[in-house]
């Protein structure tokens, strides 16, 4: 019973407050992310979307001044508890970044590296192929696996980064504006890929592009700047609902571009 309860969401934030030094960057986030769905986080610049996203796999730990208050439940465990190893968290909650950032290694090594350090015991060639297929890149690179990852185009690089992430078999993939550095065509490819991935992974994606959130996501979380300049989760719900009939005036104003 409890088991079931614990596992009903992919990840869940409870009264999460995020700080940079003394400043409260995001206030009181409560959100439950559905499994194997795409959840988009939208909102004006600086409202803390990235901050919240990075709180989900303790990526904020890398910023010395950042700290969190409240809890982020993953498999029923608060990942901010003392005894949690952030390295362990990150191998289960992967991340894809705004700018494609392949390692300056071969395509093969890009994919294999993460699995390797994590002690992957299976057949590496198979894993690499499987991951590249999963990222819809296999056909384009299968004859050039030893070419540098940097020699690919932007869109291909981003898919390589996705392949690398799924190679360590995470539960959840966090994406921070994964297509904002790409042209429209490559963007659409990534969007299609995200939908494919959602069959196996839970995806949380931050995007500046409302239309993109509308296009790809199942759920949308709208963040906004509160009065005290701390970000707040303004509205959260099914994407179709949010974009055709949002509950809050601010959400409506934001998505129809009548803000500020």
């Amino acid at each position, binding site marked *: 019973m409890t088991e079931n309860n614990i596992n009903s969401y992919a990840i869940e934030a409870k009264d999460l407050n995020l700080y940079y030094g003394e400043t409260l960057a995001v206030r009181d986030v409560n959100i439950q992310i559905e499994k194997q769905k795409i959840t988009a986080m939208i909102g004006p610049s600086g409202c803390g979307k990235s901050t919240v996203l990075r709180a989900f796999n303790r990526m904020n730990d890398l910023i010395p001044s950042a700290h969190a208050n409240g809890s982020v439940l993953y498999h029923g465990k608060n990942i901010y508890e003392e005894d949690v190893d952030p390295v*362990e968290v990150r191998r289960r909650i992967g991340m894809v970044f705004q700018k494609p950032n392949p390692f300056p290694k071969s395509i093969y090594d890009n994919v294999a590296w993460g699995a390797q350090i994590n*002690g992957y015991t*299976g057949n590496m060639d198979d894993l690499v192929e499987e991951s590249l297929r999963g990222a819809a890149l296999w056909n384009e690179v299968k004859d050039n696996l030893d070419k540098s990852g940097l020699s690919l185009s932007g869109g291909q690089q981003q898919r390589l980064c996705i392949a690398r992430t799924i190679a*360590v*078999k995470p539960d959840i993939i966090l994406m921070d504006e994964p297509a904002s550095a790409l042209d429209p065509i490559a963007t659409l490819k990534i969007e299609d890929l995200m939908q494919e991935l959602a069959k196996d992974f839970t995806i949380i994606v931050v995007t500046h592009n409302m239309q993109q959130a509308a296009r790809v996501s199942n759920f949308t979380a709208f963040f906004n700047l509160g009065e005290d300049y701390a970000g707040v989760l303004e509205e959260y719900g099914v994407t179709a609902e949010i974009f055709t009939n949002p509950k809050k005036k601010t959400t409506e104003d934001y998505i129809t571009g009548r803000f500020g």
Partner: protein
Amino acid sequence: MSEIKKKEGFADNLPERHRSGQFWSNLFRISTGVGIVALIALLLNITNSAFGYVAIENRIDPESLAINGIPLEQLHPIDLTYILKQNVSAGYFRNLENEMPFEQRTREEIYDLVIERVVEPEAASTWSLFDSLFHKSEIQAEVAEKYPNADLHFTSWINGNFLVSPQSANAERAGVRTAVLGSLWVIFITLLFAFPLGVGAAIYLEEYAGDLWINRLIQTNINNLAGVPSIIYGILGLAIFVRALEPVTSGAFLGTMDPTTANGRTILSAGLTLGLLILPLIIINAQEAIRAVPSSLRQASFGLGATKWQTIWHHVLPNSIPGILTGTILAISRALGETAPLVVVGASTFITFDPESPFSKFTALPIQIYQWTSRPQAEFRNIAAAAIIVLLMILLSLNAVAVVLRNKYSNKL
């Protein structure tokens, strides 16, 4: 995370990974410590030699020179002159008289002459700062035993006298005055030569040079010059400025040849040599500063209908000048510390008079240090250390200026 099932297909290798991470991070820390320790050792080593006990022995006890119970320090100049006349050779006294009649000299001057020529204090032995601090009694015992006539003073080798005295064959009386002045003269020439040329070249390379073979050649050439050992510049300076251009560098072409020099081993030669040496540094630093000006700024300017020079003058230079100056200062401090090229170009090691023009013979601080370091007598090590402190102080203040500039710079763009 016991609640979460182990990742399928992945070994549980985390603890081991964390362990090796810890090991290596400690190693990196220790290495950093070694670097810091080396610096501290170096500074302590210098401080250690710059201060400490000195056992002074006088040839003549100053007390024996007292006249009518008035101690030497309080004697009238006339009495002092008298003592001097009594104790030095007549020829030397005449020489002094010719240089400047004694009536016109100040009391201090004559007193110094008496101490130097008559009392002739000499360091019988010196001790380092550490010995002086921690083995005081042993030192005293040693002095009492070995140098019964000597006075034991705790001396700071770097002191007012040291700063204003010219070079001397006697370590206790030697100072860095001529060396500092020499260094300043040389640097002045260096700057005069290298700064405009360097900045001009940098502007040319960054703003005007197209992708032509000549420009690529210039750039590669400058990069290579920056890596040429300084001693090669010394050889070049020797061949070009000292020898080939001797009529110019000696000042002969102006007819204002310094009587003390008869060749091209002058401040001018040294300055130009160091100028050549730091020119690539200035160019490269200035290029970097100019390159740091975002090209968007240039585009904006051109987009408004500005000409090339308007763009450079109004936007590129104002925004890169702090960077250029920082780079120049760093290059200057490099030049200030350079020794080898000056040795090769022919710095004089023993100059007691102030340099007066670019055509004077010269010495410089690092030369002085080098020279004192290679003397066998222990007390020259002490004044070498003192000179090093002077040099480091100058460099440190230059660097401080550079840091201030750089901070201002990084705040701006």
